């Protein structure tokens, strides 16, 4: 199975009587998620609001989000994939051994109770955070959870959604998909987009020393990436656009200060459920917007000779398999 069974946040607000947060800490990372979208809202289908909803939190440790939950399941670190796989089996009434359950740090009673609640829900929703998608198993964990959500639809309505994080990273995903077909990890080396995470993703590219210039915008890899990646950024010409002088700015050949999006720069940002929201800046920045600067860089490059001489390549290629 692959794919994603999901909805917009308003569906959760209106209908979700059963909510699971897995590997996320919304109380501290998405503080209004509970009040605006998931737990506290009343609706025509859930007139008593919080009382009509059940919230389960699955995480490796007690976070501030535990207080908001009805049930907290503390999974052993690194055992999320196993737990999801066991749940998929239990949902389908397949056999699971005691040893398998023990490995997850949870009891059979707790898991049976969870499964019966999931099936009894009218509308279930699972939100998963970086505690699931960035720990042992990574995208395999996300895929397993998405599969569980899809399979639950044999019993009742069930959806899942990643707790997309920082800023407008969702917007980058959405736009790259429509312009290139792929969400990230793209190479235009052949004159058209190709996708290969692990080969074309930034850390891998930097650690291997594959790129010979870097243009960094709306991120500070100089403060967050592994040292070998940072060392390569120092070696090559790096260009940074940011409202602040960042760690990366300090190792860059060029830094351009830009206006902060939504505060001093207008435009659009995508919500975690891929709904575009208009921005309404309050301040007039003394700095240009990212959009303006990148557009002007594009215009300056357009005046230079093109890297692929016109006529040296066909207009189209077809790679038949």
């Amino acid at each position, binding site marked *: *199975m*692959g*794919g*994603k*069974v*999901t*909805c*917009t*946040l*308003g*569906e959760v*607000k*209106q*209908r979700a009587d059963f909510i699971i947060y897995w590997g996320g800490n919304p109380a501290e990372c998405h503080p209004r998620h509970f009040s*605006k*979208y998931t737990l506290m809202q009343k*609706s*025509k289908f859930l007139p008593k609001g919080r009382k009509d909803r059940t919230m389960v939190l699955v995480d490796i440790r007690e976070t501030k989000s535990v207080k908001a939950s009805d049930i907290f399941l503390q999974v052993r670190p690194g055992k999320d994939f196993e737990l999801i796989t066991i749940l998929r089996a239990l949902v389908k009434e397949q056999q699971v051994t005691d040893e398998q359950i023990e490995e997850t740090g949870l009891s059979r009673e707790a898991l049976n109770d969870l499964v019966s609640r999931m099936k009894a829900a*009218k*509308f279930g929703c699972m939100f998963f955070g970086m505690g699931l998608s960035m720990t042992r198993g990574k995208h395999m964990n996300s895929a397993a959870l998405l599969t569980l959500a*899809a399979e639950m*639809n044999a019993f*009742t*309505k069930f*959806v899942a959604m990643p707790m997309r994080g920082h800023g407008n990273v969702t917007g980058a995903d*959405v736009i790259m*998909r*429509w*312009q*290139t*077909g*792929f*969400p990230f990890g793209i190479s*235009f080396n*052949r*004159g*058209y*987009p*190709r*996708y290969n995470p692990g080969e074309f993703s930034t850390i891998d590219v930097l650690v291997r020393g594959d790129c010979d210039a870097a243009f960094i915008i709306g991120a500070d890899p100089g403060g967050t990436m592994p040292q070998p990646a940072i060392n390569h950024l120092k070696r090559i010409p790096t260009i940074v656009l940011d409202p602040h002088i960042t760690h990366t700015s300090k190792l860059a050949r060029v830094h351009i200060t830009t206006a902060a999006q939504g505060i001093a720069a207008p435009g*659009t940002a*995508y919500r975690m459920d*891929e*709904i*575009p*929201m*208009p921005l309404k800046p309050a301040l007039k920045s003394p700095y240009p917007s990212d959009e303006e600067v990148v557009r002007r860089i594009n215009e300056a490059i*357009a005046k230079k000779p*093109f890297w*692929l001489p*016109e006529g040296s*390549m*066909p*207009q*189209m*290629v*077809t*790679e*038949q*398999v």
Partner: protein
Amino acid sequence: MLRITGGKVYDPANKIDGQIKDLNIDADGKFSDGQCDSRTIDATGMIVMPGGVDVHTHVAGGAINFARAMTPEDHRRTQAFIRTKTRRSGLGGMAPTTFATGYLYAGMGWTTVNEAAVPVLSARHTHEELADIPIVDKSTLTLMANNEIMLDQMEAGEYERARDVVAWYIWAAKSYGVKAVNPGGVAAWKWGGDARNLSSPIEGYNKLTPGTIVTQLARICDDLGLPHPMHLHCNDLGAPGNIKTTLDTLKHLEGSRAHIAHSQYHAYGGDGWETICSATAELAEYFNSHPNITTDAGAVIFGDTVTITADGPWQHLLYKLTGRKWGNLDVENETGCGIVPYTYRPSNLVNAVQWACGLELLLLIQSPWQVFLSTDHPNGGCFWRYPEIIKLLMSRDFRDECIKKLPSNIKNKIVLPEIAREYTLMDVATSMSAGPARALGLKQKGNLGTGCDGDVVIYDQEDDPGEMFAHPRYVIKAGEVIIDDGEIREAPDGREYIAKPFYDPATNDFMRPLFEDCYTMQFENYPVEIERVHGASIHDCKNDQDS
């Protein structure tokens, strides 16, 4: 600006059927009577038609973009458009990227496309994507038949209110008209249900039936004076025996204009996957006696594709049938969306029946002004495969050859082998351009008459219509030569058509509390700002009614 001389012109809107005629396009990109002395294309011996118009396709927005994310393996094996100094790169395939969508449509002579399914909540996204589809002109339809605020008005018997709500949404979305998908069924899907017949109340409602939604929404589109009638995806799509539901739906439309989308998927007899058979003869008969209703074929072509539709419950069924990837996206208050990759195989009896049904409808409905070329891209197949369908329509021999590859037990299930009709070039020009343009209410399209948009496709006459239609000699958009002998010359931005229906100004105040109950966005931020629609061309419905 441009002069085209000596070509054999097929211009159904002006009843020109293969006569030699010169065309002149002025500096504004429109056909004119006067001669211009700029560039001349000598089209002697060539075939000249108005640029193609796709009445029903899915090329931009959350759903197709979800499909792109789900099919990276296809992107890698498909046709790639290489970056040039002035033109963006792109990928073709089952769910082409935006830039490639423009190149591919223009490359086969299509110059106008109608994106047939837009949730208002993500309409900003759709418009942004459309702005990145070069060359072609565009319009969009707003998904309405499962909008709970509207359904509540219909349940309460408040027709005028419902009409104002629809008009409010069309303008909020900056769209061109109304799309109805599985009326009531997608709303029921929000609880995992469906609505498969027209007379049972919808889950969550006491009285309201899909039949009432169909009747009232069609009337609303007419009353609002929208240029395009209600664009309807009927209930019970894809199911064996659904011809009963489809004919019942058509009876609910008596007296109204309507466009029935992808009718191939709604023309099945039988009572299960084993017994499924074509019921196109019955459906075609209805169209033949009701000239106020139009349809597009939603034809199926064998091969890989990805299905995307607002019909969430159908996609759940398709996922269960195929066990392939499943994407689902329910949109608060408004609609749903499902995505499942699919392969149509000639050896599969159901797929073979579907393939025959699409062609049968295109051939059995007598007037090409009523039935239009479509695959419901990408559902029945990708739009860039239209030339294969044209070849099937123009050549009975080719059809017979293809029928031989179908399972032998298909004989009593389809009527295609008995159909002798072959499309003429005039039929093709009507079904691919003049007809859909008229149905969309785009008077300046699909028409080579004075004052209309200078969108022209010119073919070298060839024996194989598949080859001929796949590789136009020239494609001209608003007087500009876009394609010349298989090369993309220019990739200008297209326009977007939007409609402005009238609604009671008090609708804003009426909508606000209802909106705040079910949405998660601020009421003020919800409507798409007109500045966000690139190249907007507004059709004022009210003025239309007054005049």
